[in-house]
């Protein structure tokens, strides 16, 4: 027997941390603005609902591709399908940034020496390369990554 489906069903055990959410909300607004407590709660519930929606769609996308694990590209596709295509660029950038940072962390391996495995420029170049590669994958691999080589005789 299912419990009664009340609107605003609480998912106390799997909700987002109020303090963090509140900070994000407040930063969008002028400093003197107040946010009613029930408005905050509603915003958080909306966010959870958003995750549910994108999750379900990501699951579908994953199914259609006969894959077993929901990967970031499925999530991005889901966003597009559901009309949140505007988010994709920024979301993708943040994801790539995170990957670069994680990579730098593991490369440094806790050493505090000046000579990191990768300099800032190399890391940035690597990031650009990953961007381009991933974009190519997203476009079905039809477009080759842009070569930085200025030599016109090189086929790209």
């Amino acid at each position: 027997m299912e419990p009664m489906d009340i609107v605003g069903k609480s998912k106390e055990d799997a909700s987002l941390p109020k303090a963090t959410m509140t900070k994000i909300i407040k930063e969008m607004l002028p400093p003197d603005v107040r946010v009613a407590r029930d408005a905050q709660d509603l915003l958080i519930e909306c966010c959870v609902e958003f995750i549910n929606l994108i999750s379900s769609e990501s699951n579908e996308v994953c199914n259609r591709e006969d894959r077993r694990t929901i990967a970031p590209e499925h999530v991005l596709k889901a966003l597009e399908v559901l009309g949140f295509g505007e988010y994709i660029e920024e979301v993708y950038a943040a994801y790539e940034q995170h990957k670069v940072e994680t990579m730098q962390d593991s490369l440094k391996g806790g050493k505090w020496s000046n000579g990191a495995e990768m300099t800032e420029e190399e890391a940035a170049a690597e990031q650009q390369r990953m961007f381009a590669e991933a974009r190519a994958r997203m476009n079905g691999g039809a477009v080759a990554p842009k070569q930085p080589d200025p030599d016109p005789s090189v086929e790209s």
Partner: protein
Amino acid sequence: MRQAGTYSGMVISGKTGPHLLPLARIKKIMKKSGEEVKMISGESPIVFSKACELFIKELTQRSWMVTIKGKTRTLSKEDVASAVLATDLFDFLLNLVSQSAPAPLHPKPPN
């Protein structure tokens, strides 16, 4: 400026400093979203985290647009509901906010 160590959450740079949306909780919500949810790659919650941030920012902004039409400086539940009603993209939230919605602008036929 970056802190050492691997984050267990996605760092969202805000004016008051970086925020973290916990990836573990996002994963939990994802798993609860359906009965046959597959395995989730370790990186997917990161993508979700950023998408959530953007979503909340947009919803907050739209709600705020409603608030300033009134005379208060307090963003209320009704403002959030109004923003949802006014945005086609947020149709999936209609059920969630229907309790808080202000008086309907036009009568809708019951489904």
